[in-house]
């Protein structure tokens, strides 16, 4: 399973990598913002993306919109401190499949990843 982590914080990417490793996912690509992610998705062809919202250069919501505009159906989980309901709705409208609010426990992120992949496979 190829997973792309899009977060401007290396700390968060490392924490997410650790959780993904526990789930058995080790094929990881990292991007520091939306622009970086857009430049890497073509070569990496991720099967799942974890995307932060607040990032410099290009924020996560803009990235999701642009990625979906390109026709990609790959599941995206927004992992963000943006916890307001209106923000969640905005993200879902933009094409996000699931949502995790920081701070999170490893169980919550792991559970949300499994749930998202199961939902996509069932669709």
């Amino acid at each position, binding site marked *: 399973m190829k997973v792309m982590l899009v977060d*401007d*914080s*290396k*700390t*968060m990417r*490392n*924490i997410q990598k*650790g959780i993904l490793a526990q789930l058995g996912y080790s094929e990881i690509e990292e991007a520091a913002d939306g622009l970086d992610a857009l430049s890497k998705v073509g070569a990496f062809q991720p099967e799942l993306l974890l995307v932060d919202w*607040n*990032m*410099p250069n290009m924020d996560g919501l803009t990235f999701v919109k642009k990625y979906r505009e390109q026709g990609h159906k790959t599941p995206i989980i927004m992992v*963000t*401190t*943006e*916890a*307001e309901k*209106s923000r969640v709705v905005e993200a879902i409208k933009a094409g996000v499949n699931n949502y995790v*609010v*920081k*701070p*999170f*426990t490893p169980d919550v992120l792991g559970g949300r990843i499994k749930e998202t992949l199961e939902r996509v496979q069932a669709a």
Partner: protein
Amino acid sequence: MDSSSITPFVQSTSNVFEMMLQLPVTVGKPELKKEPEPAHDVSGIIGLSGDIEGLVVVSFPTSTAERAVSLFTGETLEATNPDFADAIGELVNMISGGAKAQFEGKSIQISVPSVVVGTGHTVFGKKDMKGVTIPCSCDIGEFSVEVSMVEWVNATAA
């Protein structure tokens, strides 16, 4: 600033420390910030804009910050390491994000974090912005959450 504006920051700080560092936090009595008041050695800073304008500063003595980063990242990092600043920035990001979600009906944006490392530094907010210092302590030492903000009267309802 009234006490109801402080509660979201107190709750969010406790939540972040318990969830990410497995550390219960004891919160002391918030005090009006007397400027210019030196922060601790390491400060994570986030700006608030929108219906509320302000600054959130989470400030630690170096030893407390290093222990917090170690618990957060699972690595021992010196304060001069860029990854150390990144971790402190992410902590203040989570605290600010969690707090802003509790201001119902208000549209608030948070900036990307900045981190200052250096003994005796002072963080200035906008002039005339009233600030409150929330003293906090946990098993790895003391730290503070400093909140300075202005709530605009004509804030739009969500």
